[in-house]
Structure formats: C-alpha cells, structure tokens
C-alpha cells in the first residue's frame, strides 16, 4: 500500500516561544499536509531540511511528541473531533556561537 494513497491530515506549525529570536527560523509555509502514517521523526526531518537546522523538536501543548508516534495516533489522542488543522508547535536548536 503506497503512502500517497493514505488518508491525509492537515497541520499548522507555529514556532514555540518568543524573545529575541522571534523572527528567526520562522517557517514561511506553516500549513502542512501529509499522510496519517507519517511519524513525528519524518516530520522533524523535513522541518530540519526546510529550516536548515540540525535539530527541530515538535511539540503539542508544550510537550515534545514522541518520535515514533504517527500523525494518526497524535490526531486521535489529541485532536479527535476537532476541525483541521491540528495545531503543533516546533522549537529549534542552533549551534551555540
């Protein structure tokens, strides 16, 4: 069964926190659609590439989401019955200068 035939979910990714870095590493395209079978580590990898950063964490309700969790599990446990998109946050780690 190909992933491209999977049911999709809609996500909205907002950057976590504020402070002096507020305008840095903001995702220009924050609305994301992907397969219900994609796992959090797939999403993290795509985000790392887009933001050109070594580490991006995905959070729901201020808590990091486990890497092996699929988006369907996340949806059913956190967002069941609510309209799309599922709101997630991300936090970034840069190398210290």
């Amino acid at each position, binding site marked *: 069964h190909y992933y491209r035939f*999977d049911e999709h979910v809609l996500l909205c990714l907002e950057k976590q926190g504020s402070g002096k870095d507020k305008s840095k590493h903001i995702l220009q395209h924050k609305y*994301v659609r*992907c397969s219900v079978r994609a796992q959090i580590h*797939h999403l993290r990898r795509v985000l790392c590439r887009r933001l050109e950063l070594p580490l991006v964490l995905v959070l729901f309700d201020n808590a990091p989401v486990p890497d092996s969790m699929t988006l369907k599990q996340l949806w059913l446990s956190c967002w069941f019955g609510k309209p799309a998109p599922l709101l997630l946050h991300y936090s970034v780690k840069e190398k210290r200068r």
Partner: protein
Amino acid sequence: QEEDEQDSDRFVFEFSDKQLLPCYNLQVSVSRGPCNWFIFSDVLKRLKLSSRIFQARFPHFEVATLPKAEFQHQLSLSQVLAPEEIQEHMVPPGAAETVELVRYEPELVRLLGSEVAFEAWSS
C-alpha cells in the same frame, strides 16, 4: 531498481503559507482502492478557472464524479474529520446530486501554490 521503489513510496509533505484546500480519501469505484481527491469546484475557485478551461489546459488530471450520498457516507467513516467538516457537505435526502472530484497529486498541488517535499520511510 531500488531507487525506483523508494521513489514510488515516499511520504509527500505539502507546505503552504495559506490554509490548504481539504482533500478527502475516497474510493470512487469498486475496481480500485481509495486515494485522495479534492472537490473540483474548490480547486477551480482557487485557480480562478472554469471547468472547461481547466480540463482543456490540464487534460492529464483525473476528474471523477461520485453521488453525493456516497461521498457523504465515505466522509462519515473518516476518523480525522470533525463532525462539522462532514456536516458541511450534507444535502437534504432525496436530492439527486453528485460531487465532482479531481485527484490529488503533487503536480496539481504545486499548481495550487504549495511546495512539495518527499521523505523516505527510512533513512
């Protein structure tokens, strides 16, 4: 060969700066499995095109028709659609209506202004 297999089954991530058009996982005929479809009129509205011009310009995009009742039934089986999103497409019983759909594919999504990223299952 190996690369081909990877290519044929990677995750597609679609990124956009505006709200994405909803798409629905539907089985449009008994002879094939479910896949993803946009509502044709949503796509035309966003592209500001008429159906005739769209189909003349992009004859390779697949368009299908589903009876509205069947469309609603399949929507109601989804676990990731909210009741109000299903409700949106309800019509009074008895109304003989159909829904026109256009198949979800990366090329169409790019046309709608999204960026597409691929990610292999493992790597």
